[in-house]
């Protein structure tokens, strides 16, 4: 008797709570007079990608502040210039939560258009899929092109580098060196993940084309903490150059263990894990001579690039090789909204496809698939700054080969 009456009481309370929750959700969103353009984005503010999420958020917010300072965006349909407001949802570096974040942005925050998250499997692809379901334009970057194309998305566009071009960068740099200085026994150490495998396949294919053979070709596990097996193997093989793809934490550990084991290579080039300011902060002078990939450089000869780089440095006391790509994404979107004259997703996307845009990344031009590419860069750490090495035509800096650890 007691248990059943207690349970029924609980059920009633639970039922009322559930109904109240439903009613709360059912309430129509307050009829909002269009006063501002709401741009939503799912970013990794927590989780393993939180570091890059903060940088990406800064770049988005800076672009929003800049366009608002200029008076907003002219929307013909509304007949006035409108300010932009950025609405950020945390995707916690998790694909399921990225989908949930985009659901919230569309259904609760009622955003007009969406800017992309970070990394294909964690934020971008789930974001694109969710946006596709609700036919909301998802304007994105930071995602490899092949997996994005596989979905044949109709409501998103992608601005990223071509994998073949990115993987040819180290070979181009090597071939620019005098023959005697070119690596003879390079090693390929690629993280055993989504992106790592994609990079590894292209690197292998291109090595033959450029006339190089890997003395060591091994995948490495994420967060393994001890890479001495690979390092000792590299040392015994006489490896003189390393191409490495991995997280910043793993790359930091790897370099520390390289030094401890006295593995000397004259050329070390990292993807993903060696570009962050944290890489330099953690390793200090040991990061000298190491190269990193990047999407952008403040040294690019495009209007606004230098100023953006300086503002980033002022804010974070470090340099960025990616903020420009994210900022340019916004520049394209603001321009496309103005050209479309509306906030309608289909029309804004069409305006993106139909026009060329001038940005801090240079000219951006999308193809009919919805893809625009930019050049993947290479920079070398010198006194805490990434010096642009490639593309050669946009830099005067010449690469310095690394001396042995005991000669630094």
């Amino acid at each position, binding site marked *: 008797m007691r248990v059943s009456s207690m*349970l029924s009481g609980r059920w009633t309370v639970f*039922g009322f709570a559930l109904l109240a929750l*439903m009613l709360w959700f059912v309430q129509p969103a307050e009829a909002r007079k269009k006063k501002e353009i709401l741009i939503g984005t799912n970013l990794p*503010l927590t989780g393993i990608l939180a570091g890059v999420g903060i940088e990406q958020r800064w770049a988005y917010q800076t672009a929003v502040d800049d366009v608002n300072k200029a008076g907003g965006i002219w929307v013909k349909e509304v007949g006035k210039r409108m300010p932009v407001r950025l609405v950020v*949802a945390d995707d916690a570096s*998790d694909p399921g*939560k990225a989908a949930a974040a985009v659901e919230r942005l569309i259904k*609760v925050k009622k955003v007009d258009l969406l800017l992309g998250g970070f990394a294909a499997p964690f934020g971008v692809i789930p974001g694109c899929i969710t946006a596709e379901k609700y036919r909301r334009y998802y304007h994105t970057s930071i995602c490899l092109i092949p997996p994005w194309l596989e979905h044949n998305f109709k409501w998103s566009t992608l601005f990223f580098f071509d994998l073949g071009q990115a993987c040819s960068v180290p070979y181009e740099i090597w071939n620019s060196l005098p023959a005697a200085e070119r690596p003879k026994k390079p090693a390929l150490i690629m993280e055993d993940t*989504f992106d790592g495998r994609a990079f590894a396949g292209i690197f292998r294919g291109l090595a033959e084309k450029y006339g190089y053979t890997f003395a060591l070709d091994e995948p490495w596990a994420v967060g393994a903490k001890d890479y001495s097996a690979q390092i000792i193997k590299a040392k015994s093989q006489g490896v003189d150059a390393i191409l490495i793809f991995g997280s910043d934490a793993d790359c930091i550990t790897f370099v520390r263990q390289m030094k401890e084991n006295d593995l000397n290579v004259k050329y070390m080039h990292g993807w993903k894990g060696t570009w962050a300011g944290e890489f330099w902060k953690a390793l200090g002078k040991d990061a000298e001579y190491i190269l990193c990939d990047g999407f952008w450089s403040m040294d690019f000869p495009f209007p606004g690039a230098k100023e953006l780089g300086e503002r980033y440095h002022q804010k974070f006391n470090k340099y960025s090789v990616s903020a420009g790509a994210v900022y340019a994404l916004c520049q394209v979107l603001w321009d496309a909204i103005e050209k479309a004259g509306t906030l309608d997703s289909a029309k804004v996307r069409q305006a993106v496809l139909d026009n060329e845009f001038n940005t801090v990344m240079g000219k951006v031009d999308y193809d009919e698939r919805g893809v625009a590419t930019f050049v993947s860069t290479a920079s070398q750490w010198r006194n805490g700054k990434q010096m642009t090495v490639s593309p050669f035509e946009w830099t005067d800096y010449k690469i310095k080969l690394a001396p042995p650890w005991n000669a630094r």
Partner: protein
Amino acid sequence: MEESERMRPKPSTPILLSALLLLGAAALYPFFVNVEESYAIYFLFLTFVHVGLAQGWNLVAGYSGQASLGQHAFFGVGAYLTAMTWKAGWTGYLDPLAMLLSGAGAAVLAILVGIPLLAKLRGDYFALGTLGLGEILRVIFTQGGELTGGPVGLLLPSSAYQSMRPYYYLALLIAVAAVIAVWLIVRSRVGLALVAVREDEGAAAANGIHVLKYKIVAFAVGALFTALCGSLYAYYLFHIHPTGFFSLNWALMPVLMTILGGIGTVVGPVIGAFLLTGVFELANMWLPEIHPIISGTFIILVTLFLPRGVMGIGTRFDVRPRWRKALAIG
């Protein structure tokens, strides 16, 4: 007396009426909102998935006393089986056959793994063993080559998506089926045997209960419901990725929800799933940068002040006069 009643709730008219009322409201709800624009539909879909997961864990831990930390293994297996059969052309989009195959496959895996694990390990060791299972499977699926898509995972044709409505109803069906299954099991001889095993394995065995058999039954049924949730979630995300689907989150969420609602009760996991999903979603919505702090604080407070979960509120704050309590117990 009180404990056994808590474990084996008797059906009563108010409970059944309340349950039917809520079920009816949930079933009719999509007819009163714009399904494609309503966030509540997504919220309820997610909550129903969580109910299925929590109820699966509740059966294993709450009734048979085996605290599994490997539910993410079954969630991932369910998702991958659904994706692989669809990719192979054997099943299609939102195919009940694929979902049932995924559930059955995970149940078989639970039996195969459960025999050595449940026979040899108990308590913390069993929890660690199941935790290892999830990690092993994550690596296997990451290294699975073309069959599993390797670290890239399996991309499913997202153009198949038509509406949120079927997702909502399938999730509701899984949640209701899980609640009914647990309720029926708990009220059956199997449930009695499970509780006996949980309370004292030695005594249960001495009374002729086949301890291993009943533990495996609970483990397999829990795996089945967990895999059904994984299967449906795979259809929702369209990208089955080893890191995402074998994430430890899928093991920890049902644990938190069940403990929060009331472990070893039929209604507890339902309440826990609603509460925790609600808290997580609201915190995420309004405090995107610090939501883990809010959610974490909420969990700490509940475990501190309501160690028996929400279902324990009645016993903790029972304000009836003593003479009525005495009569009720009597």
